[in-house]
């Protein structure tokens, strides 16, 4: 009987000791397993963050590259415009003056001089036009709103197409570098409508709200969205919109009419 009691006590002691050992060892194993799982989760999170950072850096880099390319394009245009205006334009004007003097002093008939004068006048006008297109001085002096209006009027006077300009809201000042990008997009859109779509009516609507929205619609022959454009015009417009942190959408109601919408944040 006594021996049985001793055996029971020993067995209970063994059970108790084993339970403690079991709890500690199992907990240790579970902590190890859990640690591995959490490490994987943590590592994955870190990796994703790093990848996102990398993607963001790449986008920023591309943006900066695009900005630099557009900036250098603009400064090159400025230089060419200045050269044309101050160099070629001034020389042509001087030639015209000399020609008039020559006609007065020498025995040269008016019939001979007049066609040359006309040709010179046309050349001077062409140089001025090219110079104005390259460097929109109105934009520099009076801002985007006036420059867009003036551009529409100029296109209207040069072509047979009807170009209307509507503006809603109060025009807000933007950085000049941003204004020129918007100007170039609208210029390209009107050019495309006249040159490729053979539009007879173009409407430019500018809306100054929380953000600047410009909608250009035309009644031209439109385009199929399935056909990849050959030129760089559309690509350049999209790039400019991206630099502006804006959106650019172009839809065509094939077979006629195109609608382009540019949205640019003002802040």
């Amino acid at each position, binding site marked *: 009987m006594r021996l049985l009691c001793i055996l029971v006590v020993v067995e209970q002691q063994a*059970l108790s000791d*084993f339970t403690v*050992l*079991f709890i500690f060892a*199992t907990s240790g194993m579970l902590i190890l397993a859990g640690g591995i799982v959490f490490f*994987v989760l943590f590592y*994955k999170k870190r990796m994703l963050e790093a990848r996102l950072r990398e993607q963001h850096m790449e986008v920023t880099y591309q943006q900066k590259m695009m900005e630099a390319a557009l900036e250098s394009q603009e400064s090159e245009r400025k230089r060419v415009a200045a050269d044309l205006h101050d160099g070629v334009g001034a020389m042509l004007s001087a030639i015209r003056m000399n020609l008039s003097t020559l006609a007065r002093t020498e025995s040269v008939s008016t019939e001979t001089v007049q066609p040359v004068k006309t040709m010179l006048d046309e050349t001077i006008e062409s140089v001025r036009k090219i110079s104005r297109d390259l460097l929109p001085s109105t934009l520099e002096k009076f801002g985007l709103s006036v420059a867009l209006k003036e551009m529409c009027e100029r296109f209207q006077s040069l072509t047979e197409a009807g170009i209307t300009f509507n503006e809603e809201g109060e025009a807000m000042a933007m950085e000049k570098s941003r204004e020129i990008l918007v100007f170039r997009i609208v210029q390209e859109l009107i050019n495309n409508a006249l040159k490729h779509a053979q539009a007879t009516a173009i409407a430019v609507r500018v809306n100054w709200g929380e953000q600047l929205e410009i909608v250009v619609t035309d009644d031209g022959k439109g385009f199929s969205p399935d056909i990849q454009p050959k030129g760089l015009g559309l690509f350049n417009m999209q790039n400019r919109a991206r630099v502006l942190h804006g959106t650019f959408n172009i839809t065509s109601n094939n077979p006629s009419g195109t609608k382009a919408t540019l949205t640019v944040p003002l802040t």
Partner: protein
Amino acid sequence: MTKLDVLILSVYFQWFVSLAVILSCGLNYYKRPRYVKVLFFYGITSFIFSTLTHYVISRDNYLINAYVFLETLILSSLYYQVGNSVLFRRMIIVGVISYVIFYSSAYLYFPTYVFSAIRVGRDLLLILFSVSYFIYLLYQLPEEDLLKFPMFWINTAVICFFSGIFVLSYFRDYIVLVLKDDTAGFWAFRNFYGTAYWLVLAYAGWLNLQSIRAQKSDLSH
């Protein structure tokens, strides 16, 4: 409620959740990836063996040993299906062959410790595979959220379950031979823990089912 009642309850729980795995992995069976199909067979095997051991051939430890062997093979084949790395697959083949040799040797050369030995072998092998799979996963991280990735849950379940029962497997013979009675608590713990394990596996199967249904609806749209 006695400890024995708790043990019986835990057995029913485990039996029930293996049914959940069969359901979550069996629906849309033909469209499931191979590893989910393997999980489906794992659920069926567990269900059949649970039924056999508790209703037909009660307390037949050799039958449970056969289940241990099958479980190791099934889970190894699951890892073989998901690992696209040659090295990882070679490791699985070598591991399984070693286990088969070890399993046979245990019966032949140290039958006294066979119950503990084959379980410890299984636990170590599966812990090794799951840790290796996690390492493999670190190199081949999926783009999607890891918590929505079924294999992450399966692997987590495997590593946590087999680590948790490792001590129990190691001391199995000691518990049976020395502690004899009053050990129902350990087996109940094992079964309840197994219930959680099967639940996680069922969740992984359900996650995969959701992604298949989402793909189907995308295609129909």
